[in-house]
């Protein structure tokens, strides 16, 4: 069975088609592992064996008939709890939605279910995706399977831990400032945040709408390419969904990298990156040169402003988006209150955790009368400078590479006392979201404490196929992505 928990999605698909294993057996294998290992990790926060097995039986039916089966039919996956999933509790990691059973499916959930994938359960996350360590979840932190004394990263920390521990072959994630890439790096996985607008946000609980984007998390680039092909596509229910022809993101995987120009931003290789991360990233770049790529220095002079600009823009959008949680139509309502305003204020005070409240308050302030120009408008102008830097850099390179995170996974509590320190763990990922560009992380070695290190690849708009090709060719030449934590075997 150990070959099945480490198998690629392609191999799982082949085993299912060849009837070497059934979808029910595969789902049972992972559900049993979840039962044994999840109590020590806290990655899953909603499980429903009956629902999962019913979906698996339906997939087996489809596989038996043959017609309507896809490359993903019968393969299990799990959803970050930010995706509305019909009939499942969808909590977004918050007490506010502790009892919310979603009456509908997110577009992404719908598409993956239509492809025949089987939902194993819902994954823990930082509350409303606000956090970089999974410590803000109302349901308690997720532990990193490589070392349970350390954080898995966030906000898609449950997704990352579940795959790293082989409790699921793949998962969905969302990325507003690094929430797919940073946990992928800290848990030794491959994760991709697509170009803004490539994947529908319908049914994905909104944090900062101009930055939020869903993407796949899995063991390899090849798996991510398959998943993204199934997840992406136009959806009229998301007003920012892009109307483009469907893409096969696997199309270039087997192309060699000869002539690929890799841009290395000076600002990503300065002080601030730990020595162990630097060593692993440099070694990966040497491997890329061996594979025929060339490297060129580029500059993103305004990238240092991306974290402060983000912490104006993202809270501003969050304060507006989260105003919907008023204790009237859904979500938590305080047990005791006076008038209507008192009901709102008490429900929100009790329903939201500390980090979410902080961001709503900051967002409200920067949008308030007299401060809008000084903060929000100013940050939006700087956002344009950051986006323009990337376009300049892409004149001399095809993809940009650098570290995903300045350090390997840190210990619980190490950064939770000072919000600004926590915010800075996304220093290399945030600029991509501000510019709307695709970004991914893939494992490129191990650092201090034998913890995984992530290499980040940033592409130009719609450069996903090229990024996945670059990642896949590297993964054919290396085996970092095949490693799994000893304790989880």
């Amino acid at each position, binding site marked *: 069975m150990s070959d099945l928990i480490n198998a690629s999605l392609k191999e799982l698909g082949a085993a299912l088609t060849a009837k070497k294993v059934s979808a029910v057996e595969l789902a049972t294998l992972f559900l049993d592992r979840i039962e044994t290992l999840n109590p020590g990790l806290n990655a899953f926060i909603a499980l429903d064996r009956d629902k999962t097995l019913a979906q698996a039986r339906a997939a087996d039916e489809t596989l038996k008939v043959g017609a309507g089966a896809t490359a993903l039919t019968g393969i299990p996956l799990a959803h970050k709890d930010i995706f509305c999933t019909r009939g499942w509790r969808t909590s977004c990691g918050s007490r506010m939605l502790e*009892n919310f*059973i979603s*009456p509908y499916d997110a577009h992404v959930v719908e598409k993956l279910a239509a492809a025949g994938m089987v939902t194993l359960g819902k994954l823990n996350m930082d509350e409303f995706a606000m956090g970089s360590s999974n410590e803000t979840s109302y349901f308690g932190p997720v532990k990193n399977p490589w070392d349970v004394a350390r954080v898995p990263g966030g906000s898609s920390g449950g997704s990352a831990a579940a795959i790293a521990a082989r409790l699921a072959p793949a998962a969905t994630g969302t990325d507003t400032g690094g929430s797919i890439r940073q946990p992928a790096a800290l848990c030794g996985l491959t994760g991709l945040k697509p*170009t*803004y*607008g490539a994947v529908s946000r319908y049914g994905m609980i909104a944090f900062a709408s*101009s*930055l939020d984007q869903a993407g796949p998390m899995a063991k390899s680039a090849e798996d991510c390419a398959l998943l993204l092909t199934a997840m992406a596509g136009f959806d*009229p229910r998301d*007003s920012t969904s*892009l109307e483009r022809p469907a893409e096969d993101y696997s199309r270039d995987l087997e192309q060699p990298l000869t002539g690929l120009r890799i841009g290395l931003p000076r600002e990503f290789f300065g002080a601030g990156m730990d020595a162990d991360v630097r060593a692993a990233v440099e070694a990966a770049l040497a491997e890329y040169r061996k594979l025929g790529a060339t490297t060129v220095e580029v500059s993103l002079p305004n990238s240092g*402003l991306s*974290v*402060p*600009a983000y*912490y*104006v823009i993202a809270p501003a959008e969050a*304060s507006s988006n989260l*105003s919907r949680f008023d204790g*009237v*139509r*859904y979500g*938590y*309502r305080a047990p005791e*209150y006076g*008038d*209507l305003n*008192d*009901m709102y*204020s*008490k429900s*929100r*005070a009790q329903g*939201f955790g500390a980090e979410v*409240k*902080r961001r*709503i*308050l*900051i967002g*409200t*302030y920067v949008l*308030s009368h007299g401060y809008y120009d*000084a*903060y929000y*408008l*100013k*940050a*939006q*102008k*700087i*956002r*344009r*400078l950051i986006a323009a830097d990337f376009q300049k850099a892409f004149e001399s390179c095809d993809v940009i590479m650098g570290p995903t995170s300045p350090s390997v996974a840190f210990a619980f509590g190490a950064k939770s006392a000072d919000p*600004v320190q926590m*915010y800075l763990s996304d220093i290399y990922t945030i600029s991509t*979201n*501000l*510019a*709307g560009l695709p970004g991914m992380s893939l494992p490129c070695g191990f650092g201090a404490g034998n913890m995984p290190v992530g290499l980040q690849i940033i592409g130009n*708009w719609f450069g996903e196929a090229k990024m996945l090709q670059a990642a896949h060719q590297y993964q054919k030449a290396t085996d970092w992505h095949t490693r799994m934590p000893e304790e989880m075997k």
Partner: protein
Amino acid sequence: MSLSPEDISRIALLSRIELSAAELETTRDQLNGILGFIEQLQAVDTTGIEPMAHAVDVVQRLRPDLVTETDRRADFQAVAPETEAGLYLVPRVVE
């Protein structure tokens, strides 16, 4: 610039989030820390730069004015804290 306790109370009121006296103090410290951090944006010359509100330039799509949704009021109200006769219940606002 630094936020006073009165500023925090005003922001909390606008946000409809009740803060206790103890929370007000810690919140003030943390928000001032974050504002101190974002203050560096002020030093950047942005003369003549157009604000960028969105990651991609898209125009709002229009759709034909047709009924596309089915009535699922009962499903949607099943997740509400308090309803009666198809209506959401809130404290009385008009005497």
